[in-house]
């Protein structure tokens, strides 16, 4: 399973990104992520969970998860991150902060 994560916006307006192949993580970390993905029923989430009108300086998270069977992308505004989604978002943010999984700049502007 692969995860692509982008946090954009915020006051800083910078892009915090991670491209993660779960096979490259430790078994513990990989299992935790899979549990967090299952807990959110990720593949059943709507593609766009966004406020009706954008708010200044709030974060937006874009998460794409690909398994051999399917790929799903969810874009969620910070104000609509629920308690069930938060552990996954926080975990991916932590991984992105390490810089080990960063995507090249050119891929941001899409």
């Amino acid at each position, binding site marked *: 399973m692969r995860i692509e994560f*982008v946090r*954009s*916006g*915020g*006051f*800083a*307006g*910078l*892009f*915090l*990104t991670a491209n993660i192949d779960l096979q490259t993580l430790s078994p513990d970390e990989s299992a935790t992520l899979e549990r967090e993905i299952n807990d*959110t*029923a990720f593949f*059943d*989430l*709507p*593609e766009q*969970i966004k*406020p*009706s*009108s*954008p*708010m*200044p*300086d*709030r*974060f*937006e998270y*874009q998460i794409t998860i690909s398994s051999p069977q*399917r*790929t*799903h*992308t969810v874009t969620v*505004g910070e*104000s*609509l991150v*629920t*308690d*069930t989604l938060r552990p996954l978002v926080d975990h991916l943010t932590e991984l992105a*902060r*390490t*810089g080990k999984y*960063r995507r090249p*700049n050119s891929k*941001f*502007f*899409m």
Partner: protein
Amino acid sequence: MSHNINCLQCIVPPHMLKNMLANGSDFQKQIALASIAVSGQLRGHRQALAESVNFLATTATPGKHRTVYTASNGSTLPGKVVRAEGAPATGDPATDEAYDGSGATYDFYWDVYQRNSVDGNGLWLDSTVHYQQKYDNAFWNGQQMIYGDGDGQLFNRLTIALDVIGHELTHGVTQYTSNLSYQNQSGALNESISDVFGSLVKQYKLNQTADQADWLIGQGLFTSNVKGIALRSMKAPGTAYDDPVLGKDPQPGTMTAYVNTAQDNGGVHINSGIPNHAFYLLATALGGFAWEKAGKIWFVAATTKFKSDTDFQGAADLTSQAAGELYGQGSAEQQAVQNSWTGVGITVGAQPQPQSQSQSSGCLPAALSILQALLGGNTQN
């Protein structure tokens, strides 16, 4: 208080919430419930603010009224009061910086432009510090300021930079005036107005001329782990940071480098580099204290002439118009405004942007969403 409708924009419309509750998946129901809870919180707070503003309108003379709350690393707003107006320093840097910074911003708007607080009517300035954990952001939520502590890894606490506080409170000023729509060019203009006046709040506090100012946004926010001097540079957009984790500062300084993107609400924090740089060019061309002439021209245009859909061309035309009214048609000041926009690739009085520009910015997201829909459709089958 009609402007406060704006803060409800974050909330899903009531009819949709009802549908989601009645017919949605479990997750949609959760979203609906969470949205209802938040809107209830906002409503209660708005009521309190409405009462205080009504009270002020009838009794008060201009003056600061600041309250700093702590969320104690949770998400409940506004939280517990930790410093009220007139109370002594607490010793907690975030609390005292939020208090002093909102005071400096109030003083700037009142002393320089005779604007009485964010709404022009003495709105009390509420700030919540210690929001969530490792939260590297600050924002104005339509009624108050909210600051995180930063993650300590990339970001220091968000109150550390005075221009951040000025930036966020200026989002409030914009909300009560032009209400610039927060996407694409009008959104980038909204961001730029916050950067311009955020920087001016800092310059005013430090008593710096345009030549002495650093023209940086968020200087001091990055920890020593980050290769960068600040988040943005108005003097040289695109040069503020270049870091292995965060990438390179993506801001353009001219229209030829304008970035068409669906992310960041159409690049509002990216293309703001263009009007930011125009202001820098004007301020340094006029010399002296930037808030006196350049700032005055921008203030008059932004608070009395901009509309919610004003784009970069509109901003150029309207700031030139403001300069003409303030200093005379054909004055040196008006000429300087026109030169500053020319310097970033915009000609005052030119026709609206060529179609290709607006088409590409609108088409790309549309094409992407079609693509996403197709991909989504395929994977569900």
